[in-house]
């Protein structure tokens, strides 16, 4: 599956806004906004993000991959997804 990194970013951003920032006044979300370290999403919401990524991009996460190193910003998430898809 060949996927452009920008496409991944757009999909993830849309999901984060829709799911986690729906009622927020300030929906300003950049690709470098820290999601986990910035307190925007916690462990419960992180799991939802993981499920979304697995279902949307059709790959499987390993438990140890669920951390800030792979999920903290949309930039990082996109890079991780592309890396996973490229094997």
């Amino acid at each position, binding site marked *: 599956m060949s996927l452009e990194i920008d496409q991944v970013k757009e999909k993830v951003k849309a999901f984060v806004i829709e*799911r986690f*920032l729906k*009622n927020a006044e300030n929906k300003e979300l950049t690709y470098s906004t820290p999601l986990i370290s910035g307190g925007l999403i*916690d462990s419960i919401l992180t799991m939802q993000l993981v499920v979304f990524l697995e279902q949307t991009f059709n790959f499987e996460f390993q438990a140890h991959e669920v951390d800030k*190193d792979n999920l903290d910003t949309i930039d990082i998430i996109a890079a991780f997804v592309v890396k996973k898809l490229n094997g």
Partner: protein
Amino acid sequence: MKIVDKYFPIITSIPNQENTLLSIARLRSFTIILIQFLAVFYIVQKYQFEKSSGIMDYTIYIIVAFVVYNFFQIRYRPALLFAFSLVILYSAFGILAASFIVFTGLTFIVVCHLPIKFNFRLALILMGALGMIVFRTEIIFIPWLTMSAMYLAPMFMFRLIIYLVEIKHGLVPASKWQSLVYFFMFPNIFFLFFPIVDYKTYIKTYHNVAEKEIWQKGIRWMLRGLIHVFCYRLLCFNLLLEPSDVKDISTLLQYLVINYTLILRISGIFHFIVGLLCMFGFNLPQLFDNYFTATSFVDLWRRINIYWRDFVLKIFFYPIMFQYKKKIKKNLLAVTMMTVFVITWLLHGYQLFWITGHFPIKLIDIVFWMTIGTCITINSVIIERKSLSGRVEIPIQNNLKNYFVKIIKMMGMLLFMSFMWSLWKSRTFEDWLFLFSKGKIVSSQQIIVIGLVVVLILVLGVLIQVALKNDKINQLINAKAHQTLVLCLTSLTILVLVSFKSISTQMPAFVQHIIQNMGNGAPNLIEKENAEIGYYDMLIEGGGENTIGIGSKSFKTEMVARPYADAYFLTNDIMFRRMKPHLKIDGIDHDFQSNSFGIRDKDYSIVKPPGTYRMALLGGSYQMGSGVNNNQVFEAIIEERINKERIDSNHKQIEIFNFAAGGYYLLQQVELINTSVFKYDMNSVIYFAHTDERGKIVHFFANLIKRGLPLKYPFLEYVRDASGAKSYMSALQISELLEPYADVIMKWGYTEIAKKCKENNATPLWAFMPTTTENVDIKEYNELKAYVETLGFVTLDMRDAYGNIDRKEVQLSEWNTHPNVLGHRLIAERFYRELMKNKSRIFKIN
């Protein structure tokens, strides 16, 4: 060069600063930081920050290490830090124990990297841990090995788990030296109870930003830690109540809330530790996040001990979720969360086991963790469901209503945690329930006062929130590390200045009081008493009979206390416990022997030799000589002296039988005199009393009733029945019911001793000697003296047994206040003078 590089590999991702180590700009930054660092450690010394940890004794080492470390090239620093940890280890524990700690630690690390299957490595490590358990549980008791296991465990008990998980997932450590410093973190030598530092975070944050920023953050966090501890002391000295002080709803609320706020000590210590690590380049993340302001259960979980939460998430939560996400379709989050809280409970027991040697399976712990776990789980499931249905609410509207709601939620959480904390700190459920049964509303005035306090908190809370919306204030609070220089310098300057007496005495009285409290390193008596109960107190102060203490300084203290743990066997009677006969325990600091009669003394014949004067000495741990050799106990000194000086012309020799034992009070002495003492044909019996005789008797009697032990004496059974005390009641309640009978029980005890002496034609003696921490209550002394004199006791006044010498000079240590060798010599001297003064009545000579 190659050889050097092999052992000091260049650590990637760290900016190469080798050429800038001595640049003017760096030297300037470093000087500013060094001034602050010196001020922090001046405050540590002056305000006695966690004195029992031993960190005060190593201030010079730490300062020198900080300076040297930061002028070495970065590639050498981890090795240097490891060397520094070794210096402290060897200096604190001595060659034998430190070598054991280092060797065992290194073995564990090497095993993690052995070129064999992961499961084999894991098995080897578990076998090693089993070996440590053997020492820690004292199945094999070699004092220094047991203690070494206790100090090794906090470095490895959690870090090894994290390290193995990283290795399992192929995350190779950055360098050998960094792995070594990860395990041998030098602050761990001072603080057994240590935050769980994640390996990846530890490595990744190493010099990850400009060093002056990390240094300044370190200073700020150490300062924050000090301030937390000072707040803790202020609360402890001024507002902390004992359970027995709870009389109504107001005092109950005070008891609950203040006890919970004592968590400030833990956050203070943790901030200090993490700040100290920052000074060595480890830019570790936030540890606590204003946990008193949590507005929900999940919010509290996010804010309190963040390192612990991250550890649990990484090692248990996510793996469990992934393991079962395909198998459990419904309520996966709830199942996982509850499993994680069961694990959290077990891990707290695991932590307590390594530090205290006991794995307590207590119903209170289970209820505490399961209640908190259930609340957080329900809260999480609600959040999950809301989020799945797209109903996530982020209340960001800045209006008064939201402010009020937020403060009410915060107060609710604070009350809930105070409530749970009080349970966790209680000895038994009965104690806890009894505490609440006392919290009744006694007047409408009380409701008004409580209502006013709530309103005041609400108003203040709203005002603070309004103020926080001010950009300037917000900027100040959220300032980056390097922007807080002025704030840190000002705070440090104030703390340094007010530590000078010439300045503090110019302040108003209440400020002087605050400064005095802040600088008082001695724990409040209530806190010390509570140390046996609460989980965190147990970790910090140690529990049970041993005062384990926080860190290296307590190593020897523990060694001093250690011989007594195995010196007794429990009896199911009024004695509660008796000393084992024929003991010979070689402790590190002193030896402990008991004779064939099961008393700490040399061997005597059962039949009194002709021309011998025999005296029985009844007392507790002071008289037994806790912490000194058999021949250094004042009883042994006095016996030798009297025999040498031949002061009793009627007798060839004198034999003083030391019946004293740790934890013996008047009721046990009555039993001893009725069952043991006169088997040996005594000429006199001396009973040693301390301050608060009545309180001690009540406390012991309450324990007997609580344990349902047979009381043997009809009088004691009568008092138990008359007071209404029952074994199912809490010890606290039993004590309160017995309190009105304290005087009559004490008098009964003295009468029994006098009566038995008369029957056996022996002289009863009564000596009053304060402990090294007590001040004599003149009223109590006069009352007791007058009473025992009516019973025919010869009274010995040993109120000034320690003379004018500073009490600290006669104590074994700060945390073990039994008399040391000097203390026993002083007591012996005073005892001798009193015996001489009364020799005509005691020895029947002129």
